[in-house]
């Protein structure tokens, strides 16, 4: 029987850099590896990885495996699962962590079923049980209404981790580590999918995920015109506009603005929720915000349970006055 050793992070890169979530995974992985007194491993897969492998060491990895191949230019389930299956069987880590991203939520289940193991998806917390030394993953279930702690004895123990749930280590340029390229033979005939094109739908201005102030509108905004008012406020606050699901479903705003369980996760200093009822699925994406402010005409709306300050009333009256006053205060 192979011996399962080490905590491995599946890292993602964009333009030769580690993604923010990857640094968070390394931070969490380092803690778990230290508790288990094992190494923190990282695996990076792509066409060209640039400086990312070195950066993974700076963020906490002891050993970084790299797989570079032109066939890995874009994420495709078949090719990436093949690569990861081979790598996991060769390296046999005890724990494998991935990000809950477009890649992670596709790769983790398929890889897990190939390996015969059971991942915990979208974890907010990961801990080692002091007695059994097994990984316990805490994840939101029932649309965020509840949390569940799962454990699995099949190895490697796998989990995907939600964005911004873990903290990265301070980068340390003096950290030493090893970079180990590995070669995986890929048979193009076995890749049954073909990426025709990738369409970016990025909105202008500050990225929603990075904004320190988010002004989000819900179904009660009533149409695309109302969102212009939210944009005005966002501009004044140097923030970004977001939305609950109905405005996206109704095409008042692009789908990429959706915040929540199946949308973006945001954790700004200030989250202003306008005409949003505060469903558990929506709160899944914004409850990490430092300060939630709610404007809603329904005093019983669930959003007030999460908010620090609230206005009960019609946003059409409250918001223009709020925006005007904010503008005045910031100018003065």
């Amino acid at each position, binding site marked *: 029987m192979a011996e399962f050793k080490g905590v491995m992070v599946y890292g993602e890169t964009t333009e030769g850099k580690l993604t923010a979530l990857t640094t968070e995974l390394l931070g969490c992985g380092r803690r778990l590896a230290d508790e288990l007194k094992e190494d923190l491993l990282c695996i990076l897969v792509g066409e060209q990885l640039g400086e990312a492998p070195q950066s993974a060491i700076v963020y906490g990895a002891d050993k970084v495996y790299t797989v570079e191949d032109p066939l890995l230019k874009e994420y495709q389930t078949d090719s990436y699962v093949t690569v990861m299956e081979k790598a996991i069987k060769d390296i046999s880590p005890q724990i494998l962590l991935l990000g809950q991203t477009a890649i992670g939520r*596709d790769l983790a289940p398929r890889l897990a079923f190939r390996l015969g193991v059971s991942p915990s998806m979208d974890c907010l917390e990961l801990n080692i049980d002091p007695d059994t030394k097994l990984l316990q993953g805490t994840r939101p279930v029932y649309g965020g209404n509840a949390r569940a702690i799962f454990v699995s004895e099949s190895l490697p123990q796998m989990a995907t981790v939600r964005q911004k749930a873990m903290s990265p280590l301070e980068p340390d340029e003096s950290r030493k580590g090893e970079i180990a390229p590995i070669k995986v033979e890929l048979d193009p005939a076995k890749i049954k999918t073909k990426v025709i094109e990738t369409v970016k739908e990025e909105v202008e201005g500050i990225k929603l995920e990075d904004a320190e102030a988010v002004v989000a509108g819900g179904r009660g905004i009533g149409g695309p015109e109302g969102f212009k008012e939210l944009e005005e406020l966002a501009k004044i606050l140097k923030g970004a506009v977001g939305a609950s699901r109905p405005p996206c479903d109704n095409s008042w705003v692009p789908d990429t603005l959706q915040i929540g369980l199946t949308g973006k996760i945001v954790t700004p200093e200030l989250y202003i929720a306008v005409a949003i009822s505060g469903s558990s699925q929506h709160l899944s994406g914004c409850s990490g915000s430092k300060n939630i402010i709610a404007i809603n005409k329904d005093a019983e709306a669930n959003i007030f349970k999460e908010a620090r300050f609230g206005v009960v*009333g019609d946003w059409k009256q409250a918001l223009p006055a709020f925006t005007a006053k904010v503008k005045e*205060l910031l100018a003065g």
Partner: protein
Amino acid sequence: MNMIVCCKQVLDPEAPPASFKIDPASNTVLQPPGVPPVVSPFDEQAVEAALRIKDSQGGKITVLTLGNNLLRDVVKKPLSMGADELVLLEDEVFEGGDSWSTAYALAMAIKKIGEFDLIFCGRQAADWDAGQVGSGIAEILGIPSITVAKKVEAIDGKVRVERVIADGYQVVEVTLPALITVTNELGEARYATLKGIMAAAKKQPTIWKPVDIGVEPSQIGAAGRRSKLLKLFQPVREGKCEIIEADTPAEAGANLAVKLRDAKLI
């Protein structure tokens, strides 16, 4: 085009958050009184994706649902939307499963159905939100999978899918047979028509027990799990909201700005 759609009966995810209760002793969720279960919304959209293909080029849609004591009114909804057949994997031993035991039973049922070009699932079930069963079925059947699709078109014996990614989407082509999981960006599922409801009422679902799909009770339901639920709990929210009082909403809006300034939030 032969299509199979996997649909799960779940607790209504849009029920008011205050009605959500769990029983900590048994680690289970209590059915809120007066709120009937529903077909998981993403699964309804998976039915919609299949119906759109059927509309444009014909085909047959078989719906597959696993559970126990399934409510006929709920699980028949896809039939009333326009699906052709309903197969229920219904038995108490199917209960209490995880992604593994569920995907395994569904995959074995799909093998028994035999002919299929496309399998659809919702991107995740609205109760456990794990999003693994679709990929699991595809892996067990050894066919390609594309997850989180917002558009699915069948062209020349292939399927072209728009797969949602963080800042946009990817257009991906896949050969058949394949499995696709569907997300809400696909657009709303159609309503059942009166004609559809009448037709659905007449249709009898086919019911399969574990032996019918050639699985051992040890491989399915709670016995077939590969993950263990240690604890289910509701996070405590200790938020205290300060409501800004004023004579008019406009005044409250202005006062809110001052409040935020005082609290150094702006």
